């Protein structure tokens, strides 16, 4: 392909959104560089470790939002669900004396229950999801207040495993490097077998250098991250859990029957039904997964703050999680996006927040800037949709 041809195809892919999360990842790097110029502490290993640790809980919630957006729906109550889950963990374990694991399970069960109710409302009564999840937001916030009781705040002891896991647990360097080696080897093996099978089946294959380049790029990216964060405290356990969940969701979305049904239903639910996709079950799985991930995000937040209060999961968390999913490039129109948009999106939002804080700007600046970025992301989403239809 000639150089101008390459530029033209890349531009076309950019216009239609076929480059996936890549453009947003570039934006993330640019944001990092800008803040680094404004404040030399921004790209320090210490700050980046903090940034990753702060992203995990809300990132997990954003991952759930990515799933509902994929089926063309939205859950506006994820923040409230995370807050209720946090309250259940804290009140259950501290005030009622349940074992901590039981309190965590109960919190996740709350997520499953809420998601099931939403799914039933959507599939049986065909109520639009933004309406009943908005109602759910109010109801669940009320329940959260009720669970927390008159004091409105419950603290967790610092020595509990959940708190240690979310605050002070980091992967040992050997573990981090072992994971990097395994992931790169697994990726390379997957690509190689795929290529061999395609050659045998006489199907077109990507040039070998492209495969090698991808593997090298992945190895380089992971190594740089692990090495750089390793100069400080390393990769946090909770961040590793988040990235692991994103990778797993990505695999499920792209390489399994379930993932394909999810994208089909998000693209055209009626066509998917006629093609034999169990549309109801797909909606149920998406709503339940979303609320359960929201609850898990609440559990991680309670560990990170070592406390649950009435502010847990309120306003901020909700909007940040939904904004992150959209900023990361998952379409509001359904059927398009990537699990990785939860990771890239939350890192963008968190970088803006941390960067502005380092510049001594307050909450108000943070809200305005994040809001503007979200507006840009939604506009791009709409323009890309139009470009695809043209």
């Amino acid at each position, binding site marked *: 392909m000639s150089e101008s041809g390459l530029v033209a195809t890349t531009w076309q892919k950019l216009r239609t959104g076929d480059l996936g999360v890549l453009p947003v990842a570039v934006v993330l790097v640019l944001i990092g560089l800008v803040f680094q110029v404004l404040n030399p502490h921004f790209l320090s290993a210490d700050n980046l470790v903090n940034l990753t640790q702060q992203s995990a809980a809300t990132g997990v919630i954003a991952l759930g939002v990515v799933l509902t957006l994929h089926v063309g729906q939205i859950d506006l109550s994820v923040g409230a669900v995370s807050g209720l889950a946090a309250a259940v963990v804290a009140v259950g374990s501290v005030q009622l004396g349940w074992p901590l694991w039981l309190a965590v399970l109960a919190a996740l069960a709350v997520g499953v229950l809420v998601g099931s109710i939403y799914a039933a409302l959507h599939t049986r009564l065909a109520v639009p999801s933004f309406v009943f999840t908005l109602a759910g937001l109010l109801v669940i916030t009320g329940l959260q207040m009720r669970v927390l009781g008159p004091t409105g705040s419950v603290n967790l002891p610092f020595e509990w495993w959940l708190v240690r896991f979310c605050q002070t647990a980091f992967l040992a360097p050997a573990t981090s490097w072992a994971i990097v080696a395994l992931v790169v080897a697994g990726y390379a093996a997957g690509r190689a077998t*795929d290529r061999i099978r395609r050659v045998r089946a006489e199907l077109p294959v990507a040039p070998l250098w492209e495969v090698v380049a991808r593997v090298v790029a992945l190895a380089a990216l992971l190594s740089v991250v692990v090495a750089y964060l390793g100069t400080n405290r390393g990769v946090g356990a909770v961040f590793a859990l988040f990235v692991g969940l994103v990778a797993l969701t990505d695999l499920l979305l792209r390489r399994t029957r379930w993932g394909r049904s999810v994208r089909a239903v998000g693209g055209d639910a009626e066509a998917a*039904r006629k093609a034999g996709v169990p549309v109801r079950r797909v909606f149920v799985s998406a709503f339940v997964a979303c609320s359960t991930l929201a609850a898990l995000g609440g559990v991680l937040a309670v560990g990170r703050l070592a406390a649950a209060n009435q502010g847990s999961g309120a306003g901020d968390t909700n909007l940040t999680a939904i904004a992150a999913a959209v900023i990361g490039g998952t379409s509001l129109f359904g059927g398009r996006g990537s699990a990785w948009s939860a990771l890239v999106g939350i890192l963008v939002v968190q970088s803006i927040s941390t960067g502005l804080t380092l510049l001594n700007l307050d909450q108000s600046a943070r809200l305005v800037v994040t809001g503007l970025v979200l507006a840009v992301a939604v506009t791009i989403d709409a323009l890309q949709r139009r470009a695809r239809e043209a």
Partner: protein
Amino acid sequence: MTVVDGPVLALRGVSKSYGAARALVDVDLQVHAHEVVAVIGDNGAGKSTLVGALTGALVPDEGEVLVDGSPVTLSDPSVARGLGIAAVFQDLALCANLDVVENLYLGHEAQRGLLLDEVTMEKHAWELLNQLAARVPSVRVPVAALSGGQRQAVAIARSLLGEPRVIVLDEPTAALGLRQTAEFLTLVERLRERGHGVLLTSHSLADVQAVADRIVVLRLGRTNGEFDAARTSYEELLAAVTGIQR
């Protein structure tokens, strides 16, 4: 394929209304193995509704759907598919955001272990499309990027997957070019030779006369005569479709 006398797929006394609009009224219909049945009728005659009732896309208000002579409830297209009835809908029922291979195998994906087997699916996709002489630039482009005729070819190819016993096609040639229509009609004949039952609806009396064994005319939701394709003239069919007696 088991050889059964009598129809593989049949409707008995089927009616369907949309509010006050009566789309089908007391319709009887049979499709045998080794047979091509054409259903013709004007716009709004009830052809698509009939196809829906045969393929589980909608459930009739009254009457029965019979498979091998026994009544079945086709609550969903996947149920019909499980009984060996494949469909090409007038709206094609393709997901524009998925690529050709993904659409062909939607709901019936090939797997290797727990993961999808893209290689097998892609290979087979080319074979299916070649049967129809369908030209698509790549089987990995989203269906949104295909022309109307290419999309129709994809929808037809999808109905051939998994050797269904009866294939029901709603206006399959409406968007096809001359060559693709010819290939399609040959394919229909091949399907009949292989023992499939085929039911198709059409506006093109020429296509219908070329390929059908029996022609059923629908008019305002009722059957308005059944004709032997070999012994019926264009004028007779036209009169039955329009209801104008000469």
